[in-house]
């Protein structure tokens, strides 16, 4: 017999809250974004747990989609951050040109 679902769900809720707290407490954009990922993970864990509890595969499918969305979000979000920083202090990113092999 495996661990009751409720335990997982409480764990997920706490994880979600930690993520939300981080979102509100931190001011570093990247860390805030990571906190969002924590929240998404909490949601995923909830989905998977419910999927097991309900004996329904839909929850796992949802996680699958959330993962895709998270990936797309990260691409765009980090793109925005990079663009923002590059514009702010023109030097930082441009200096990577020395990497030209």
């Amino acid at each position, binding site marked *: 017999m495996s661990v009751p679902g409720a335990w997982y*769900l409480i764990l997920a809720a706490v994880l*979600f809250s930690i*993520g*939300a707290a981080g*979102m509100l407490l931190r001011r570093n*954009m990247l860390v*805030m*974004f990571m906190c*969002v990922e924590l*929240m*998404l993970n*909490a*949601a*995923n864990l*909830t*989905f998977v*747990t*419910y999927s097991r*509890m*309900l004996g*329904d*595969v*839909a*929850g796992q*499918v*949802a996680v699958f*989609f*959330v993962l895709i*969305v998270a990936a*797309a*979000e990260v691409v*765009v*979000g980090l*793109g*925005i*951050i990079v*663009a*923002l920083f590059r*514009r*702010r202090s023109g030097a930082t990113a441009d200096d990577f040109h020395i990497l030209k092999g």
Partner: protein
Amino acid sequence: MTPAPVTMPAAARAATATTAMIASVPSGPLVLPHVDYGALMPELILIGAAMLILTASAMTVRRAPQIVWTAVTVVASAAAGVASFVLWQRVTTHGPYAGLSGSLAVDGFSAVFLLLVSAATLLFALVANGWLEREGDKGPEMQALAMLSGSGAMLMASANDLIVLFLGLEIMSIALYVMAAMNHRREESGEAAMKYFLLGAFSSALLVYGIALTYGATGSTNLGRIAAFLSTEVVVSNGVLLAGMMLILVGLGFKVAAVPFHGWAPDVYDGSPSPVSGYMAAVAKAGGFAALVRVLLSSFSVLRLDWQPVVYGLALASLALGAILAVMQSDVKRMLAYSSISHVGFILVGVESGTRQAASGAEYYLFTYAFMVIGSFAVVSVLAGLGDRHHAISDFRGLAGRRPFLALSFTVLLLAQAGIPFTTGFLAKFYVLAAAVSGGFYVLATLAMLSAVVAAFFYLRLVLVMYGTGVQVAPLSREPAEEARRRSILQPILAGPGISVAGAASPVAVVPAGTGGGELPQGSAPEEGPLGGVFEQPPAASEAALPAMAAVAIGACVLVTVVFGIWAGPLVELAQRSTLLF
């Protein structure tokens, strides 16, 4: 193809669908569901056109002129509009149903939103064309992203499954994040995108968690099945369900910028390229509200007593804060942003009653608001000049003398937003208020109207500024002139809270506070007609030619706003009928 006529609370059908799905999972040949291309056609057209222009631009060495991409976008949006209309026809004749394994709601409600998004995309393409040409931005990305974003909004509007809803929302929002960042000439653009993105991601995380909890509590993510479940089970104090519902509400609240979740809106509207701000205000709100209305009114209508207080609070806060903060702005885009928040409040007032009328009221409001706000931002976009920078209220001074067409159009659009009769704006307010009143929410409706009064103040102030009244024309020297101009613009602003807030509370208090009588200097004849000066003064800002396409878009917005404000029947009936099929 005989689509099963599913109305949402069809419990039995949903139940059989569930068992069928489960049974089909483990083994046997894969039976693909019937793909209802007709129902998906608007989305497919938009996505396809986006792909087309992206590919085409990659294949040609010389950058094609912007007009090519615009033309494709316009044609595609028009085609999507036609497809939506065909869908509407089909729905009206054959009735609504849930397609694609129940994940897509094909009904009048969604058809109207598809139409709305198509129109908004079309108008955006026209407006953006001029903007892109001015900024020297070659490439089809803006238009392609707009179409993709539009398809996301369409999916949100016709989502019959929380997962589809979520994906639609993400498609819409992620494209908008990028579009918000696309003004390379303004530092604010990147920051706007950043802020939008972070809060957007946060809100979608809330939404996902809400969906997860709802899934757990009801055993499904399908809206129809949730409704069926809730209507058959007696759910007494199901905390998880409530928490899930609230989180969904909050997540969508962020998207539509309802008040405690509005923080991003002013900065984002300010920083984004102006056409994008307009598109955002029209489409993101449409998508968000379409989803919100569908979720609240179909799936969670049983839990009405639980969500109504929340929506009440959101509506009230949005109305009050949106209007009051808008008064304090000295930038047109920020002002429009706050005003859009107060419009959100209005729509929520309609939603609050939770009736079918509420759905059609919200729908009508969003439909007409889309035209107003796209038109408004189009005017701002044209006037803002290279870099999209000049949109302080003072930049609009004396506009009527310089650009009569723009001034007149903007006036109409602003008045419509203020809710002046014979515009769609008035009917929209009337519609949602009617929904609220018919639901018995008199106090809320009254407060909404009071907020409309405050809102009218800042719309009118802008109109006044455009017509150059109440403002003395600048003296010779440059810097003090700028100062004086600011101050004179600020004067009504400073007087604003006195007039509007106190005025709302008690009319008596105003004369001493505001612009009371009898203070004219004795003997000196008052200067007549401040307008005269304005007309004689040479225009301050450099005159860029009015982009023809933007002019067409603005004209179309104005026309829709006025014509359907007078010839009101068709649109109102459309809204009314669409939700009969809800």
